[in-house]
């Protein structure tokens, strides 16, 4: 294995992890965002506290979570609390950063996780999506939002079909405050090909960093509006071997990063238990 042998999902997790600062409280959703949180804790942000909407605050991450309500989310937590308290704490401003995925995003970082209308509408959508979950709440009140999604033209759209989670709304100054929202809104969009930030004046998403081997024209072609590009466009470094190793140890059966099909590579429950225990991250508790 070397640092150039990695999947787009792995690159996305590693780029996301760098958006967290040490000592922050991160409100994490399930899947890749969570692995990014584990990774940050094992590298530059050992004092990061993860918070789960199920009510777990500051667990030690010794095994990967398959969902935000997996009992693993509660492993040696500093505080085992309630869903409503955690959302109250979110609204109080105690959480610095949240990570969200979406099916659609617009240039102001507004997100759709509810429905793709297609020829239809909200009541007869082409694709019904899961809904807000805690996404709207996080986008409304958390310090800043990091969005993780695949860079595809049908996802980066001029206007989202359904605005599930507010970004900068219409982008006018003070739009969030006028609506009554507390958090500072989206700060970064991490994709499988490039990293985007938001202009502090216009609130518009711009291309900040491109990943190794990706062409600017590919990125522009994957965005449904005339994308602005940083005057100081950067290229991301390759992931390090240490990062890739840590990532693969955190998700030893590759069930999160690799997805559902990886389950077929396991012979059964015995192998799964064995792999989990062999790769458990042991801190002295």
């Amino acid at each position, binding site marked *: 294995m070397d640092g150039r042998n990695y999947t787009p999902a792995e690159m996305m997790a590693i780029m996301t992890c760098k958006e967290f600062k040490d000592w922050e409280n991160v409100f994490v959703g399930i899947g890749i965002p969570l692995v990014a949180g584990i990774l940050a804790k094992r590298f530059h942000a050992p004092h990061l506290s993860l918070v789960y909407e199920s009510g777990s605050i500051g667990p030690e991450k010794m095994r990967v979570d398959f969902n*935000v309500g997996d*009992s*693993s989310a509660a492993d040696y937590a500093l505080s085992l609390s*309630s869903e409503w308290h955690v959302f109250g704490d979110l609204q109080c401003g105690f959480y610095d950063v949240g990570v969200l995925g979406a099916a659609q995003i617009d240039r102001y970082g507004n997100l759709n996780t*509810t429905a793709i209308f297609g020829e239809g509408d909200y009541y007869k959508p082409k694709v019904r999506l899961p809904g807000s979950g805690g996404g709207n709440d996080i986008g409304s009140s958390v310090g800043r939002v990091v969005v993780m999604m695949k860079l595809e033209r049908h996802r980066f759209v001029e206007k989202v079909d359904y605005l*599930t989670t507010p970004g900068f709304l219409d982008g006018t100054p003070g739009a969030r405050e006028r609506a009554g929202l*507390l958090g500072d809104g989206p700060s970064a969009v991490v994709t499988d090909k490039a990293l985007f930030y938001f202009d502090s004046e216009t609130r518009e998403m711009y291309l900040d960093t491109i990943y190794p081997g990706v062409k600017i024209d590919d990125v522009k072609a994957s965005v449904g509006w005339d994308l602005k590009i940083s005057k100081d466009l950067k290229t991301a470094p390759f992931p390090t071997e240490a990062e890739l190793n840590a990532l693969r140890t955190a998700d030893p059966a590759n069930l999160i990063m690799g997805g559902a099909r990886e389950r077929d590579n396991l012979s059964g429950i015995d192998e*799964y238990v064995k792999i989990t225990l062999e790769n458990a991250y042991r801190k002295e508790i």
Partner: protein
Amino acid sequence: MMSVSSKVGSNNANKVMSLKDAVSKYAVDGSTICFGGFIGRDCVAVVHEIIRQGIKGLTVIDDSKTDIMDLLVGAGCIKRWEGAYLGYGAIGLAPNIRRAVEKGVPQPIEVEDWSNAAISMRYLAGALNIPFMATRSMLGSDILKYNKRIKVINDPYEGKPLALVPAVRPDVAFIHVQRADAMGNAQVWGFTGNDENKVRAAKHTVITCEEIVSPEEIRRNGNLTIIPFYCVDAVVQVPYGCHPQSCYGYYAYDVLFCGEYHKTSSTREGFLKWLDTYVFGCEDHNAYCNKVGWSRLQKLTYLERQFNRIHA
């Protein structure tokens, strides 16, 4: 005006009953229900029994309940969902929910969108017996646009926009916990979701638990009793009642069993076969455990206890 007595079940020392009786008594056709836990501590055994008994026309008002809702929707038990999340993140909707919403198979379901914080506040309002709660969520979003039961006001103290959400008062709450006594004092370890509020908001509460313990055992750690007896109508001992979901301190998530479910349920036929095997083919939860295999369940307990133990 809600009569005081409408929320008070009879207080008595022994509320223990069978899962079959608790479900048939409290999950009647057309009722409004909710479930405890948050994926972990999901009421899977209760859901199997609801399906086994062929209960129809249920409204579920809940936060994120994908796994058990997929079963209930696929089995045709659900009329309406008021909630926040039905899905598997990037994967999208669960297989039966997708078929019901996109193709009306086995039947269409009504969906009303809320956020998780909104549902949490609706249960908090119910638990306090007040008609609404205020939240700063959903402002500026299309959730408001399509859900007219959310009222945006300028609050009378600060004059700023605020969303109001109405209380929930479901007919019954089913909550799975680690330990309860026969009177219904229920103790929870791990995150607690909205359970403490659901049992207070609901007209009736059924507690399923890993272990029924003595009141003396409960009294040793009263701080863990998030559900007091007076909220509870029935207590049922159902070990491994959350499988394949996890139960903190008792057993880990069965990721491979869930994987099989997803694969099998990707077709309607596969799902019906799955139901025949694990629900209709099992006369009760014990038979389900036999089918899953006690050795497998023990391994999940072993795995969990490498990470989480209950200190009490």
